[in-house]
């Protein structure tokens, strides 16, 4: 356990090194926040209470999604390309020799990165959004704690999905296409482009049960206090179940993939 804490701390420090890059990212997230917020104001002026959100809630969605964009890798990226490169180059053989669990190692490192980006790239855009617009941020500290727990579960779901995608490189070698597909699905079905509760009819129903919903839509709805009591427990359980299922699938695929490494002759 201490080992994985050290790996996570390493991930945190690694991203904390690039301060200019972080500042540049904050600037870009904030600019996008203003652009998207303006379009949502126009949309909610036409249709107040669209998707069950009032205007302040819709704007909260915009700024929280900008705040989580880097941390949750909502537009793709993160550790996945690095792992794909190691698989393609064969360095993965070294990783497999190490007396650590491959999946847990990468999970710890990715959570370290996410923790830094949540602080470094999340706090400022959300604060700017709260100053510039009227947001529906909760006053209850318990809600904020549940939100952080929900974000953590969302991060694990996001990791588990991208781990599966990265492992595809064992078979595809060039994982860029699979990575692209995964980024697209994530961008659309997490609610990054448009909140999932605005998606129409049965399509929306399905979208809200897919694992990507656990990455952004559920955490935001927890923060907006749309899940209370048993509803909150159900929302967190939804995330936890997806996290467990996807991590388990990652293990299965990993064991199949490592057998493949041996077949290739290593």
């Amino acid at each position, binding site marked *: 356990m201490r080992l994985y804490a050290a790996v996570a701390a390493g991930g945190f420090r690694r991203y904390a090194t690039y301060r200019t890059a972080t500042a540049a990212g904050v600037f*870009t997230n904030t600019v996008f926040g*203003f652009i998207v917020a*303006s379009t949502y104001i*126009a*949309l909610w002026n036409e249709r107040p209470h669209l998707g069950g959100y009032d205007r302040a809630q819709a704007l909260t969605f915009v700024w929280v999604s900008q705040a989580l964009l880097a941390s949750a890798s909502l537009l793709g990226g993160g550790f996945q390309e690095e792992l794909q490169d190691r698989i393609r180059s064969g360095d993965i053989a070294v990783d497999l020799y190490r007396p650590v669990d491959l999946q847990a190692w990468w999970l710890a490192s990715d959570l370290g990165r996410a923790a830094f980006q949540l602080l470094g790239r999340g706090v400022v855009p959300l604060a700017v959004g709260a100053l510039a617009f009227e947001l529906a941020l909760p006053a209850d500290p318990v809600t904020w704690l549940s939100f952080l727990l929900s974000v953590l579960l969302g991060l694990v779901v996001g990791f588990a999905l991208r781990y599966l995608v990265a492992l595809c490189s064992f078979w595809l070698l060039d994982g860029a296409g699979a990575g692209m597909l995964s*980024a697209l699905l994530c961008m659309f079905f997490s609610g990054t482009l448009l909140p999932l509760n605005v998606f129409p009819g049965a399509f929306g129903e399905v979208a809200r049960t897919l694992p990507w919903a656990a990455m952004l839509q559920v955490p935001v709805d927890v923060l907006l206090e749309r899940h209370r009591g048993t509803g909150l427990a159900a929302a967190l359980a939804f995330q936890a179940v997806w996290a467990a299922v996807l991590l388990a699938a990652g293990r299965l695929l990993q064991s199949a993939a490592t057998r493949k490494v041996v077949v290739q002759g290593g």
Partner: protein
Amino acid sequence: MADAAVRRWGEGLRCYGLIVGMWVRSTMAYRLSFLMMAAGNFAATALDFVAIAIMFSHVDVLGGFSLPEVAFLYGTTSTAFGIADLTLGNMDRLGRRVRDGTLDVLLTRPVPVLAQVAADRFALRRVGRLSQGVLLLAWSLTRLDVHWTPVTVALVPLMLVSGAVIFGAVFVAGAAFQFRADDASEIQNAFTYGGTTLLQYPPTVFATDLVRGVTFVVPLAFVNWLPALRVLGRDDPLRLPAWVDFASPLVALGCCAAAALAWRTGLRSYRSTGS
């Protein structure tokens, strides 16, 4: 004098073409991967428009503009941006080259550095974004209910070319900035990707100060907003004089001059990391 300048430009373009050709051949070594990436690039921007279409499933107008009108704005900026993104989009890798010292290699070759940086790792998959913009523009033209005159017809290609040049100048200026701040490449995303996202929506959606900013400071409004409002027969929210709608080519030239100056200054101030 003029002859020498023309020859230099010709030489730069020829080298750009050669390097691009090399990267295209290299891309085609993984043909299936290329097809997937191009399709993905297309789908990424298409999904962007699906989000707008979903918005219009709930409303008839956004900021007073109908779906075909927004699609016209979307198509024009995406096409203009798509051209710039395809030809110069990889310039944001300059910071990486400054950091790891590989820019020095480019300086020793007898080829203009700008041409080398612009063609570096040329990404043919970006035709995906461009084709999505063109298709949407074509669709919007069949749906628009406007009175076409020879002037407004001519404005469409004019704004596409000027828009591409304006975005291209932003890419070059952004790359020049990376000589100074080598890991701040994400700032330019705010103006390139952020800019085209902004221009997809009608200006009436945004605060007047923001519209002023992209008209007078970073003149992105000339990519499509001002000429497109003329085509659509609408007033611009800043109430600028009518000739401004035709000023895009001039603004594009001005942007090029500013970007060239920034590039020269950046390149001259470059100090190798020495590693």
